[in-house]
């Protein structure tokens, strides 16, 4: 997928520059200087913890919030002063926001009825409902639907007028795990078929990776990293990204040498030479990101000695946490050791990554 971006960069659809938004005097800015480009037909996800500013950006694109500073352009046209109803953008809300007094059909037809001349309204509504497999529910009211069904209707309502851009604000967060997984597949599939650019907001890293062409990781109102999921995972731009993506062990250290995409770092578990983020310099403090797959068991007495503190059975494998030199390391294994046992661990340096400490 990284090749998709690199080789066939799509035409630019939306471009935001220098966005700033502060709520209330003296408060920390919710969005503190964000540049963002969204390509045509791309599935872009804004990922970050709550309060990182991702929803605010979405609302500024939709027109519900006005930026204190910065510009947003769509198809090269600045959106400043354009009210929500005149932006070729539609939103799928976190709580679906279906109109309780209207049937499913009328909910979906809502935007079409507001247009002065619409041909084949019924056909278009049917098609939108078909696209989300809700064609048989047109006469129902929202309160007669399950959460997943309501979510589908909300999507149908947002795509029926064929917006240039679809915004989705944590649309699956209210659903149970199984329904969520199921709808992720459907959403991704729908986005490919429609060819509409999606901007998706979530705090769930797995969901972001499963759906997105581009992931924008946000931290405290700023963008920490913009890249395809694989790059985000393997080459986190800083310790925040690495930590938020999860699973890895972060070990502090001092860079002893850096260059050519690699760095040597002195840590509590010894010196490690590994791929690194660009621009590190010798003497700088940095972190070593150790992914579970970089660790493997070796016979006791060889490798790095560690003592097992947890073993969590997860079906086909077991997640093990072991402490070496005061550092808790996590890895997976099919034949896990006992808790309390002393083991030997081997570290695959090429699967580690040296990155900056986040501000």
């Amino acid at each position, binding site marked *: 997928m990284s090749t998709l971006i690199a080789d066939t960069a799509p035409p630019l659809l939306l471009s935001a520059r220098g966005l700033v938004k502060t709520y209330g005097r003296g408060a920390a800015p919710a969005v503190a200087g964000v540049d963002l480009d969204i390509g045509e037909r791309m599935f872009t996800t804004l990922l970050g913890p709550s309060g990182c500013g991702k929803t605010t950006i979405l609302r500024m694109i939709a027109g519900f919030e006005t930026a204190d500073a910065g510009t947003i352009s769509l198809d090269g046209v600045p959106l400043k002063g354009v009210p929500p*109803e005149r932006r070729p953008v539609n939103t799928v809300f976190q709580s679906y926001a279906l109109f*309780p007094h209207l049937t499913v059909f009328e909910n979906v037809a809502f935007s079409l009825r507001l247009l002065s001349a619409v041909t084949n309204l019924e056909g278009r509504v049917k098609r939108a409902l078909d696209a989300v497999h809700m064609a048989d529910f047109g006469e129902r009211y929202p309160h*007669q639907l399950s959460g997943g069904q309501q979510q589908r209707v909300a999507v149908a309502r947002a795509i029926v007028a064929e917006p240039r851009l679809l915004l989705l604000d944590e649309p699956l967060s209210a659903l149970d795990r199984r329904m969520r997984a199921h709808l992720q597949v459907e959403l991704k599939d729908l986005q490919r078929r429609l060819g509409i650019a999606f901007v998706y907001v979530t705090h769930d890293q797995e969901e972001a990776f499963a759906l997105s062409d581009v992931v924008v990781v946000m931290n405290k109102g700023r963008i920490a990293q913009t890249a395809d999921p694989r790059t985000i995972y393997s080459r986190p731009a800083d310790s925040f990204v690495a930590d938020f993506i999860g699973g890895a062990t972060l070990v502090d250290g001092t860079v002893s040498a850096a260059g050519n995409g690699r760095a040597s770092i002195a840590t509590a578990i010894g010196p490690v030479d590994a791929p690194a983020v660009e621009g590190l310099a010798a003497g700088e403090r940095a972190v070593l990101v150790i992914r579970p797959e970089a660790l493997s068991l070796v016979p006791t007495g060889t490798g790095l000695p560690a003592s097992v503190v947890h073993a969590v059975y997860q079906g086909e494998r077991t997640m093990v946490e072991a402490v070496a030199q005061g550092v808790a390391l996590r890895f997976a294994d099919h034949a896990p050791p006992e808790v309390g046992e002393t083991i030997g661990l081997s570290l695959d340096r090429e699967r580690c990554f040296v990155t900056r400490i986040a501000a």
Partner: protein
Amino acid sequence: MTARLPALGRAHLALPVALLVGLGCLAPLAVLVIFSVFEVEDFELVPAFSGRAWAELFTTPSYWVLIGRALFYGAMTALLTGLAGYPVALALARLPAAWKGVAVVVLLTPLYTGEIVRIYAWRIVLGAEGLVNAVLEAVGLIDDPLKVLLFSPLTIGLVLLYNNLPFMVLAIWVSAEMVDRRLIEAARDLGARPISAFARVTFPLTLPGLAAGVFAVFALAAGEMLTPSLLGGTYGATAMAIIDNLFGTAFDWPLASALALALLVALFVAAVGLASLLLQTRGARAVLQRGRT
């Protein structure tokens, strides 16, 4: 016997409420019905089972004029408070939380002053030598006081509107607070201009509040006696005042009971009719059904 005990237990639970409803609502009605067919002899109610009071009620047009007037006052006030109260209620719902408390106090303060105080205050404002006329004369808009301001149907309408506006605003306000703000955003997002979002979303979803307001204001305004009699001048006769007069001065309890019943039935039918019309709308039904899924 033992098998019936649980059922009996549950029946006992409902009993106090049933008694309250019976005593508080139905018993006085029953008394009115019974009184209306009695006769008064030497200031004593005699169970004569006479149709005299009802016959007199049906053959005296002025009673029906007054019942009609009560319905008119009620409907007119409901309409006017609805029109005037709607924007106020919506504005209240959009105020920051801290200001809402202040707004409620401002809205309700007039109600704490008491009806008589307010009536005399209106006389000071609207009288021939009152505030409004003094200002109009001072700025040279009029030469002689506008007498129509006080003791006229206009006065009754104005004061009924003022007295009942808080009830309408409160009812609509509560309803407006319950409309999810995101629904309005969704409507805007889907292409609705603000006025259109109001008409298509906010308005239908606040109809239950409007219905409650209409029901309350209609009953309050139609039953109002002091305001028309003290501010309406020679137009101030009300069915309520006549009933009072018949019970007290005339000692004609049967006729008073019959008139009271007729008024009650007319008001009840009209109020229920108005409110249920509003509650039939799909907006209102959606709101009322929300809790049941």
